[in-house]
């Protein structure tokens, strides 16, 4: 099967900061990629280049056979097939949970309202929030809001899901309810890229882990290779800092 995402030597500058340096990456269907690394290493930037929220300055990004960065319309058609979940949820506060989930299917996919509502209720049920459809985001906890955000993305039936530190803004007791949903998706065969600091989750869900530092991919491999036999000094240092930090 052809790769869903092909990233070929992309570079990205934020002003004078070289945010991504010659980063190359491929993602096959059903693959679950976890990107980790210290803060400011370019993980989120890489993720945002996959759906064109940030434009890369050189190299190329091909998603689902479409080359990004040519014009606005192709970017839009890529975004339809790529779901994204943000660190800060970014639910639309003036819409109910149900309306949040129906907006894109109705207006972008042109799904009939009744059908879109059924779809939305279905996905809300899957993230265990079926009873909260009529509430506004401000009435929900952080964990619940993030699960709505996941349902909202799933309603577009995306081919790929991008998670940008989905649990970093959550209170500790709410982290697991969100990770369980993501693991459920992974077990169902969803292709995904996840930026996270949750190493136990990474080990459990990833079939490949990419370690980034200062805009470069330093090392990649299976969770076992990465956690049990890290090769580079930078990954070793990162792992030891994380393990002492969480122990």
């Amino acid at each position, binding site marked *: 099967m052809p790769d869903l995402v092909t990233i070929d030597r992309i570079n990205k500058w934020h002003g004078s900061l070289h945010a991504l340096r010659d980063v190359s990456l491929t993602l096959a269907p059903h693959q679950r990629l976890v990107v980790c690394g210290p803060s400011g290493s370019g993980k989120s930037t890489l993720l945002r280049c996959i759906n064109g929220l940030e434009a890369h300055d050189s190299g190329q990004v091909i998603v689902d056979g479409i080359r990004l960065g040519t014009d606005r319309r192709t970017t839009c058609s890529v*975004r339809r097939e790529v779901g994204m979940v*943000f660190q800060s949820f970014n639910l*639309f506060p*003036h819409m109910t949970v149900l309306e949040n989930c129906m907006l*894109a299917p109705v*207006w*972008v996919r042109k799904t009939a309202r009744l059908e879109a509502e059924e779809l939305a209720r279905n996905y809300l049920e899957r993230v265990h929030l079926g009873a909260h459809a009529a509430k506004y985001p401000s*009435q929900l906890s952080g964990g619940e809001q993030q699960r709505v955000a996941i349902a909202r993305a799933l309603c577009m039936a995306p081919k790929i899901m991008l998670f940008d530190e989905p649990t970093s803004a959550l209170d500790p007791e709410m982290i697991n309810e969100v990770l369980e949903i993501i693991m459920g998706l992974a077990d169902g065969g969803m292709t995904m890229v996840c930026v996270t600091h949750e190493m136990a989750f990474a080990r459990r869900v990833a079939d490949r882990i990419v370690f980034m530092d200062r805009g470069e991919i330093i090392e990649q491999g299976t969770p076992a290779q990465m956690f049990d036999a890290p090769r580079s000094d930078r990954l070793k240092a990162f792992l030891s800092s994380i393990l002492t930090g969480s122990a």
Partner: protein
Amino acid sequence: MALEAEVPRAAAAPGEAPVVARTSYFRLQVWATWFVLVSLLAWGCHGLRLDFGYVVQKLPFLLGLRLAPDGFIQGAVLTIFVTAVSMVCALLVAVITAAGRLSDNPVAFALATFYASLFRGTPLLVQVLIIYLALPQVGLVLGGLASGLIALSLNYGAYLAETIRSGMMAIPSGQQEAALALGLPRWLIIWKVTGPQALRLIIPPAGALFVSMLKDSSLVSILGLWELNFLAQSYARASFHYMEMLLAAALIYWALSIVFEIAQFRLERRFARGVAVAGRR
């Protein structure tokens, strides 16, 4: 108000003041105090030994219930007409200007800032006079009504544009990003996501602008338009009933402003969906 009881997590969003619930006792005291103040005002007016008969006689004209001798509307009805038309035009001008202010296009940005600076930096009265009295000198003759409408629209359009711009800029960028990530096109994001949220912030200052526009519409009386202030002054001059006529005009302006404020309050409540739920306890 049924929502007050059922909100479990009442913490206000960061950066937003919690809305304090008003008890019915509080409201009762507010109404009572208002009643006392209005009574005092009425008693004071009564003490002036005004000629109420004259006010009653001229009231239908002031309110605009009768047409002017030339068959055109007059009085408060003309005031409302001028305000309403200027409001719609100002809104149109303001949206276009705000779009220019938020645009990446340098020419659009320059046009918008130039216009806003020019019309915010000069007095409305001078603008009215330039359009009505000075433009004919270069061959552009506009009637009193047209001049008044153009001056009010352009002047308030400039202020309203800034209000709209600041409202749009106050929406967190994450809202735009989430909508983009769902594949929504830009116009739809403004229509469905950022616009409605910005409206909540725009309505209170815009309402204040419209109330102020209602009152500034009295400036067009110098163009010979028979609106409320013009009629009040002419009747006053003719009969030397200045106190009666000007107080009556003031009261009518006040009543109209209150109607505007009520409309603004209703709109505010409507666009506070989602936020109000968290705020009302």
